[in-house]
């Protein structure tokens, strides 16, 4: 007959989560080193090859500027990255800033609702915690997060939290002065740089939380800037090119990456029978964008920091040149005899 001890009795009485909702320490180590696998395990979602690459860049590099074009899936990877950092790293808070809170609610925070209702993301949902109390002006939403007028917050069972504060960009984000996080994402940073000095004056300094090893590629604090590319005369360009110079100087903790809608591949997506290209690439939107100003599309669509400017040679003058050539019977030739035979 086995002897009953207080500790064994406690262990029997304490409810244990089901096996599929438990993560062993060996599994945790593996997930910590492979964010793409962690995204699959926690959220059940499948990433395209370039999105997986992007997530790995965010995970392993402490300062990343992502200049990818619109429609290239930046926001979902932001969500996965920030949530995984809060889930897997102890004593680790994260924050994301948008130019306006409303934009963030519609584009980023909506993923909490989507994944809360997704049976494949039960491990993630099981890790969302509820606060012990909700402050005045806040309400606990059905997606498991707290919605305040100034800040949306997601609490995790390990004590970490993910915040999306109202940025108060016009006031150089003075209201963020007391915030301290370990991982920071600044969405639409080019727009914020155009509007104010909020990034330099406040936002970068928020990423100052204590970490286990500030120089480590994973444990150290991370900051990610995401926005589609602009032209080189944009107010955000100096930050991008200063970052580029650091990379050229050999700094391994910085990365500038850029993807576009063209990177969606033929790999199978979560939609049955469809590839990522078929499911995610909106051809009508792309065609509309391509037909506009090429300089703008270079940044918006393709994620390339190009120059803005006027065409140096007018199309009308070139067309006149073709017309003159036609009147002269000009045709290409492989040699002198061929060129001169009809002239």
């Amino acid at each position: 007959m086995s002897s009953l001890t207080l500790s064994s009795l406690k262990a029997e009485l304490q409810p244990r989560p089901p096996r599929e909702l438990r993560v062993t320490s060996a599994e945790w180590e593996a997930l910590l080193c492979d964010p793409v696998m962690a995204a699959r395990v926690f959220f059940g979602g499948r990433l395209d090859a370039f999105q997986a690459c992007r997530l790995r860049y965010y995970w392993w590099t402490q300062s990343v500027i992502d200049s990818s074009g619109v429609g290239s899936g930046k926001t979902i990877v932001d969500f996965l990255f920030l949530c995984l950092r809060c889930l897997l790293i102890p004593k680790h808070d994260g924050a994301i800033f948008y130019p306006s809170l409303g934009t963030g609610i519609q584009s980023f925070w909506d993923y909490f609702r989507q994944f809360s209702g997704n049976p494949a993301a039960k491990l993630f949902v099981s890790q969302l915690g509820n606060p012990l109390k909700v402050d005045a002006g806040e309400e606990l939403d059905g997606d498991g997060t707290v919605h305040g007028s100034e800040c949306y917050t997601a609490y995790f069972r390990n004590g970490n939290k993910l915040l999306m504060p109202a940025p108060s960009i016009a006031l150089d984000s003075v209201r963020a002065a007391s915030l301290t996080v370990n991982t920071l994402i600044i969405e639409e940073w080019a727009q914020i740089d155009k509007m104010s000095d909020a990034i330099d004056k406040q936002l970068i300094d928020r990423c100052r939380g204590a970490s286990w090893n500030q120089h480590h590629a994973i444990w150290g604090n991370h900051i990610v800037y995401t926005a589609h590319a602009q032209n080189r005369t944009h107010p955000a360009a100096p930050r991008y090119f200063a970052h580029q110079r650091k990379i050229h100087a050999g700094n391994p903790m910085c990365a500038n990456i850029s993807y576009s809608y063209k990177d969606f591949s033929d790999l199978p997506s979560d939609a049955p029978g469809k590839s990522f290209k078929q499911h995610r690439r909106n051809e009508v939107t792309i065609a509309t964008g391509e037909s506009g100003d090429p300089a703008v599309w270079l940044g918006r669509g393709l994620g390339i920091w190009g120059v803005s400017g006027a065409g140096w040679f007018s199309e009308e003058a070139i067309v006149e040149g073709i017309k003159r050539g036609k009147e002269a019977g000009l045709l290409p030739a492989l040699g002198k005899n061929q060129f001169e035979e009809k002239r």
Partner: protein
Amino acid sequence: MRPILYFLGGDTAPSENQRSDDGALVVGAATPRRELAPGEALPRFEHDWFFDYAYARVFNSKHRLEARQWAGFIYVLDQRFGGFAQMVLDAGSGGGGVFVKRAMMSTEQLMDGALRTVVPICDKTVESQQAVGHARFILNMFKRGDPGVDSVWPDPNGGTKSLAGDELLKDAVLCAYKEALRLGVLRWPPEADEFLKMNPEAIRHWDQERIWALKNLTVGWKQLINIVVETYEKDGLQIEATTSRGARRFSTLGKDDIAYAGIYAYTAFRVWLQGEEFEQPPEEDLAGFAGR
């Protein structure tokens, strides 16, 4: 009668070694706008000429050309077009033009796969003239300090110095090209897709190379439209951005190899106009004559 003179422009992409794996060659033909009387001197100014684009060829990474093969193909074109009057190759940093120039100094060239003895084509620098005794000094490298290029676009302060910066040379050449476009000097063959569709009988006996020349020339003028000058907004107006030396900043939205090869061909024409060779009417066996 109207003499026709041929010029070559070449833009070779950056290469890490002698293997220049991407680039374009364009041939232009210059013809006086009007008939010349017998013994009449050739016109001195570019607006008295037509500059017709006659041929274009692109080499990319699939061809994997070495500098020697590049040089050999230039000699093939030189033979086909009865001898170029001048040629300009890009000599940008890291470009393959320098390697091609060196390969062209040899008297043995690989032409159409066969080794042939030729009169070498060299540039006009003192070093080349000392290195090669008998040659045709019609090659110009598109950079400051090249004698041919400096003769057209010297330092505005006078003397024998070159322009102060590379961006000033680029600004000057692109301005000259824009002026040529405005004056109606430049002419192109018709747009490739439209011509090939509307004239199937005419192209029935065309070589593939000739069809591709037409397509490349079409791509070339389309690439010209992609060359932009950087601007910034001030008081609602778009102002051209300049460097510290006052040159405009140019950039391209996309590829520009054929466009720049065409610009270099026109540059070769301008170098020829400036040089001494044309002051006398050309002899019959050096230039092609086409009577009407």
